[in-house]
């Protein structure tokens, strides 16, 4: 029994990976569209703005490179796929299958991340060529911890979007709710500016929200800047559990409301 579900999962991953490999060029472009952190780094260092927040040029460039990496491996688009599938009526056969439809989307995301890895690495190498002083090799432990926290960040975002995607059962345009969520993710996650640089009145409450754990926290670990690792991981796990319960609730009541669309 257990072997069978394992077999299902691995087949699912393999087919999705093959599918993603077909769209290499697309994924490469997507990787390029993640270069915003590098532009932000340019503004910070070019104007000496980082002196006031006590992060040196080198540490800041490592931070933004890490932020780029974390972002690359925590991008989630499940709401858009699910919305399309729901509107075109593809969800109906998925629901009948003895496999939760979101496992399929989950496999898609993981497969896409694997496809994306070489492109992200290539961009990082380019970055190092232009900024040779910022080259660093994190310790094995740091790498392992940051991989885990990046994966947790991915899980948080995947669950958040899955909750929104489940709203598709009630409304036809769930993706516009996602736009609403994207704004705080963009500005508070640390993609554009490290949370350390935020004013005091924001820092007092921001750590109680899921946002700094999406990019700032994993990126800070990977770049070797100071942070409270254990507290951060615990907060990430807390959000994952919370969102998982909410998702389950919404999904259950949503499938009861489900009216098939399309053919």
């Amino acid at each position, binding site marked *: 029994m257990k072997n069978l579900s394992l077999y299902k999962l691995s087949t699912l991953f393999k087919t999705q990976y093959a599918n993603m490999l077909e769209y290499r*060029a697309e994924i490469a472009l997507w990787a390029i569209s993640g270069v915003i952190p590098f532009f932000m780094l340019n503004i910070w260092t070019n104007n000496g*703005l980082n002196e006031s927040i006590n992060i040196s040029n080198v540490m800041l460039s490592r931070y933004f490179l890490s932020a780029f990496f974390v972002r690359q491996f925590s991008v989630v688009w499940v709401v858009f796929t699910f919305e399309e599938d729901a509107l075109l009526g593809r969800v109906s056969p998925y629901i009948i299958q003895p496999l939760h439809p979101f496992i399929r989307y989950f496999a898609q995301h993981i497969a896409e991340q694997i496809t994306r890895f070489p492109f992200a690495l290539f961009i990082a190498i380019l970055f190092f060529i232009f900024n040779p002083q910022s080259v660093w090799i994190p310790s094995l432990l740091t790498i392992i911890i940051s991989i885990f926290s990046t994966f947790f960040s991915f899980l948080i975002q995947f669950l958040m979007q899955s909750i929104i995607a489940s709203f598709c059962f009630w409304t036809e345009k769930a993706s516009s709710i996602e736009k609403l969520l994207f704004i705080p993710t963009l500005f508070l996650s640390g993609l554009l500016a490290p949370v350390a640089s935020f*004013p005091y009145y924001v820092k007092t409450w921001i750590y109680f929200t899921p946002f700094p754990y999406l990019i700032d926290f994993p990126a800070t670990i990977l770049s070797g800047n100071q942070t409270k690792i254990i507290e951060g991981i615990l907060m990430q796990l807390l959000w994952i559990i919370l969102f998982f319960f909410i998702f389950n609730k919404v999904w259950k009541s949503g499938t009861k409301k489900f009216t098939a669309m399309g053919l």
Partner: protein
Amino acid sequence: MNIKKYLKVYYYFNYSSFSIELEYKINLFIDLVTSILGLIGSVFLLSIFFSNTNEIAGWTFNQALIIQGIYTILNGVTNTWFNPNLKEIVKHIREGTLDYVLLKPIDSQFWISFNKIAPTGLIEIVLGVFVLSYCFYLNDISFSISSLIFLIITLICSVSILYSLWFLISTTTIWFVKTWNATEVLRSFLYMGRFPMDSFSLSLRIFFSTVIPITFITTIPSEVLLGLSPEWKIILEVFVATTFLIISRRFWKFALRFYTSASS
């Protein structure tokens, strides 16, 4: 005669897309909240930059706010007119429905660029005008007819450049079929239009004024407003905008030669 026909068609385009969009009333509200939050977010980011300094690359906080205003207006224009249509181009080419567009007795570029309108973007334009007028007060800008005319000219040019960039990228769909992610790349580059171009290093400044001319899109109109822009910059912008428009037109005609429909 001809212009009349196009205006009439355009009126019907607007009429039908408005009625479609108004079906999703809650969406309008969500988009209003999204645009306000987005503006708050970028002002917040700007305030972080200025938290320990009064001036970045010669721009004060109040002056940089002008760029935010102009960016918000132009982003609204993109979301109202360009985005919804260009999404459709990709779909038309993928599904082969471009055939029907080409068969219509009307210019295909016109049809494909103006067929849809998303009224939610208009909210952003209003918001941007609001910010801009507040900036007038903040920066004590004395208003003259000539500066207003120059501002309008540069804004028209910015919109033309933006349109051409979006249209050029969408046109490449004819060869690559799926260009959705290429527009993402453009979007993330355009995002940098929120900041004064002088704050970037020289190499990036060159990149942003030649490869993707963001400098012309937001920074120059803001300089015009502040009276900092010499005439040659305005003339250059007009020149760049015209070039881009011509290229986008030529490129569309050229690309159509390679269009080989889809499905059966």
